[in-house]
């Protein structure tokens, strides 16, 4: 049933986007996508099951949704027509923050799950002590997705907040000599640390081949180290998001917001990957791809190249390509 709901949700998103790109049907397209979204959310709340277990904490979920709905509705209704783009940027930042928080919670979940079970010995008595078997303690693939979601979500969140501040005049253009170089260094540092983190996790595990048992069990210092790495990446991403948007001029803001929008889409898709959730995946990738194209179209409409707009940080562009591919 939930699969069907998610399928309908995905189709409404595609249809909605399609209709949004035509003036005659745009408004209806928006409503259709909104309907699909409501369906997908309700379906998740009431029908989602993991290992036969339904979701709990309904009070918290409904409370959160109620608060978000009231604030979101009022903010969107009250905002002046001229302030629309900054509102879009703010909401986009909220989505990025949401993806970021999901990554943080899931990372803690992953780490706590294993620190609380210090006794790994039972693996040795597992069913497959003949042949070859690899048991990983921290699944590297999962960690990779979590970290990717964290980086993209955080950059999008920090960048959108700065874009919002710049559009409503709270934050002024700010750039200094060597900023582009600094941005690229920070980005490389993020990529480097993230690769190291995932590599480190992939080194742990238990390998059983024949009767030989090879163990590489993580100890206390391992967990301290990966936690340190994870939060360093988090802080560097905030830093990158801020300095990525800061030097860009006010008139170019819509282009940047559109780019950040597609970032958040990719971050949402990471969540879809993580939970094997098709509607998040389709919605996220759809926005990631359409948003990237839209960014390019917007640049073209302004007779400028994307590189020209993003002169502050050319590297940011590459993240989308890499992220969308992942």
């Amino acid at each position, binding site marked *: 049933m939930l699969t069907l709901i998610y399928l309908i949700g995905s189709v409404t998103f595609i249809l909605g986007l399609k209709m949004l790109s035509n003036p005659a049907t745009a408004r209806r397209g928006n409503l259709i996508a909104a309907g699909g979204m409501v369906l997908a959310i309700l379906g998740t709340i009431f029908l989602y099951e993991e290992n036969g277990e339904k979701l709990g904490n309904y009070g918290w979920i409904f409370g959160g949704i109620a608060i978000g709905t009231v604030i979101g*509705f009022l903010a969107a209704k009250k905002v002046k027509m001229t302030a629309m783009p900054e509102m879009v940027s703010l909401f986009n930042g909220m989505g990025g923050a949401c993806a970021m928080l999901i990554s943080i919670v899931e990372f803690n979940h992953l780490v706590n799950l294993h620190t609380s079970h210090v006794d790994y010995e039972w693996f040795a008595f597992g069913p497959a002590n003949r042949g070859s078997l690899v048991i990983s303690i921290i699944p590297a693939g999962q960690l990779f997705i979590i970290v990717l979601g964290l980086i993209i979500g955080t950059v999008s969140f920090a960048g959108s907040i700065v874009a919002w501040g710049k559009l409503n005049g709270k934050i002024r253009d700010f750039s200094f000599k060597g900023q582009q170089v600094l941005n690229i260094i920070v980005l490389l540092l993020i990529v480097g640390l993230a690769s190291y983190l995932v590599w480190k996790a992939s080194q742990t595990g238990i390998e059983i081949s024949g009767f030989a048992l090879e163990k590489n069990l993580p100890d206390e210092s391992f967990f301290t180290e990966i936690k340190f790495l994870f939060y360093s990446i988090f802080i560097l991403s905030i830093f990158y998001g801020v300095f990525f948007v800061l030097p860009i001029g006010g008139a170019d803001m819509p282009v940047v917001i559109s780019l950040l929008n597609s970032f958040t889409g990719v971050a949402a898709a990471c969540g879809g990957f993580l939970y094997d959730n098709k509607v998040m995946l389709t*919605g996220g990738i759809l926005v990631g791809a359409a948003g990237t194209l839209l960014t390019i179209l917007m640049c073209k409409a302004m007779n400028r190249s994307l590189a020209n707009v993003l002169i502050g940080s050319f590297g940011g562009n590459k993240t989308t390509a890499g992220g969308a591919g992942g």
Partner: protein
Amino acid sequence: MSDFLNWITLHQQIIYIVILMIFVGIEVIGRVPSVLHTPLMSGANAIHGVVIIGAIIVMGKAEHDNYLALILGFLAVVLGTLNVVGGFVVTDRMLEMFKGKNKPAKGNKTGH
């Protein structure tokens, strides 16, 4: 590394979806007129609010004594809802405005 490749094999279905969706996303908005750039951006912004589903799952799975997960999950649900509701409402308002302005413009176009 073999761990990672294994994981890719396991999730190949998802990877196919990703590749196809990239093309769908590009095809679907390929010929958007420039007046609709901002509403389309706003609509896409609302659609990536699907992250809220992830937030709901995080929230729903949190143990009752795991305060970090509860608080961050709750915050994620609120922010995700803001993204969804705010996104769709703002888009609707934008398009409402366009409707009034665009009708004569559209009439002109057909007249040409």
